[in-house]
């Protein structure tokens, strides 16, 4: 159990990351898509923690903390953008935003 912790964390991280990717690809609601990216970040975070355990130092967790910060920044920015888009269109369907193509 103790021995397996890093690997478990890594697997969980990978799963989270995968779920985030799949969510990003499949959900049409922009907020959900945005949340999916957040899940991807969390997956990375989990992975980092696992790696840190594997390597036995704090570097991984240090990077993890910065990831949290960045995720927060992205969250703020993302929500602002979502609000802007919603104001313009009145919908959050990602498919609505494809006027430019080709």
């Amino acid at each position, binding site marked *: 159990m103790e021995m397996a912790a890093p690997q478990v964390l*890594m697997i969980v*991280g990978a799963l989270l*990351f995968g779920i*985030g990717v799949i969510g*990003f690809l499949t959900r049409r609601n*922009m907020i959900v*898509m*945005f949340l999916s*990216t957040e899940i*991807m*970040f969390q*997956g*990375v975070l989990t*992975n*980092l923690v*696992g*790696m*840190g355990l*594997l*390597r036995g*130092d704090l*570097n*991984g967790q*240090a*990077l993890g903390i*910065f*990831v949290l910060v*960045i995720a927060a*920044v*992205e969250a703020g*920015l*993302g929500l602002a*953008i979502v609000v*802007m*888009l919603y104001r*313009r269109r009145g919908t959050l369907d990602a498919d609505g*935003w*494809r*006027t*430019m*193509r*080709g």
Partner: protein
Amino acid sequence: MLALVPMIELLLPEIVLLTGATVILLTGVSKTLSRSATLLAMLAIFGALIATYRHNNQELLATAAASVEALNPGFFANYVRMIVLAVGLLIVFANRHVPEEGERAEFVALTLYSLAGVMLVALANNLILLFLALELVSVPTYILIGLSRRDIEAQEATAKYFFLGAFAAAITLYGFSFLYGATGHLRLFGADSISAWFIDGGSTALANDGMFLLGVLLSIGGLAFKLAAAPFHFYVADVYQGAAATVTGMLGFVPKFAGMVAAIHIVGLTQWNLSGPVFWGLWVLAAATMTVGNTLAFMQYNVKRMLAYSSVAHSGYMLMALLIGPGQDGSGSAMRNGLAAILFYMAVYGIANLGAFCTLAWFRKPGRDDAYQSAELLEDLSGTGRTHRWAALALALCVLALMGFPLTGGFLGKLYIFGSVFASIGDQPQHATALVVLVAIGALNAAVGAAYYLRIIASCYWDAPRDGRVAPTPCSALQAVWVVCGMLVPVLFFFPGTLARNAVSAAHDSQMKVAAGNAELVARADETAGAVDIEKPTARSATPLKSARASD
């Protein structure tokens, strides 16, 4: 805490720039004060330039760098800084007319943040710092796109750029986590670093470490988004089209430069000792990027989209050189240097690209939501060769430079890239055919590129002018930018020396860094085991993986 002073010393340009940006941001509270935003930005940039110039003092750097592990100062960083600041100055000027009256301060400040981000990317010697710097580059650009125009396209562009950017950032970061996980280090070069781990390992098991490779590949994949390399290029056209032309000019340069510098760091971790699959992976990436970019651009009649896809193609060319790396030369004379080619190319490309977009912005036409928007379609440009001949000439020159035509700096850029690829054949004889084929693909792509670039020139010069279709933007700063770009393009052909020399020493510097790390390792290896017999730190034949692959 002792490290703090050297840290300040080393980061002085960035600090100046960021302080400037923050001050400008603060001036935004008052309308009167925000008028001086450009001036302040200029001051900040000049300040940063002066600070950078100071850093050319090697001794100063050496003493300071010794105590700060997270930074990687040197000519490489200085070169990046100088190019970024110089082009940044132009960008700031070019964008003078874009934001609305009240938002100029924010706009300028965000630009400066982004520039500072690129500089930090070059400086970073630590995954954390690298990642933060990359985010510092991209986050302001998300906002800039949204700020630059009010219409729906800009918003769509913002959304796409942001969402996909976050997506890609997550991928990059995932890659970083594996890099860390595989090696146990966050430091990139030097003692106790990832690259040291790589060399130290020196054995098949380590070099072939799946986790390490995964880390490299995921990182590069994420960075490929910034580079707009295929298949991460999808967003490019939409975003470039949506943003205001001058912001597009910036988007073509700033994030790409950051991505390229980061990619140089990441690939540099492997000492350019690319194992077969990685080599082929990058090979395919470069070939696909060139081809995809050019063929898609070939289909466009919207100049902005065309240039967007062409920027994809340019990434492809640069990836060619990235494949080569700094070349290998035990004497360290850094001949046939792919990195130098990239650095040179990037500068020329940035200028030409910015110039082209600035002329597009200068030819404005009535827009949908805005009062005006930049010229976009080919037909908007028709006859401008007669009505606005200097602007059209500048556009033509910039486009020719992008085409890589002789008598423009673009030609030298292509020359250096293709040349470095050829030069590296000697280093990698097993890849000789692949490299020659890659150059041939590049050459054919350049021909395809010529076809669509010519369309721009043709519509400027061949078609009859249409009355009232476009009118010049009354912004002398913008005009000044395209004048400067138009002049720099041929100047860079005839007088490439300074830039080229600096690019070479920058590349040389980054290689030295690697070599320095290696030297330490060699020393250590001698001390401890004494069994690892590496005469030249970067001798490739010493790597069994390589020879194993070659024998396949």
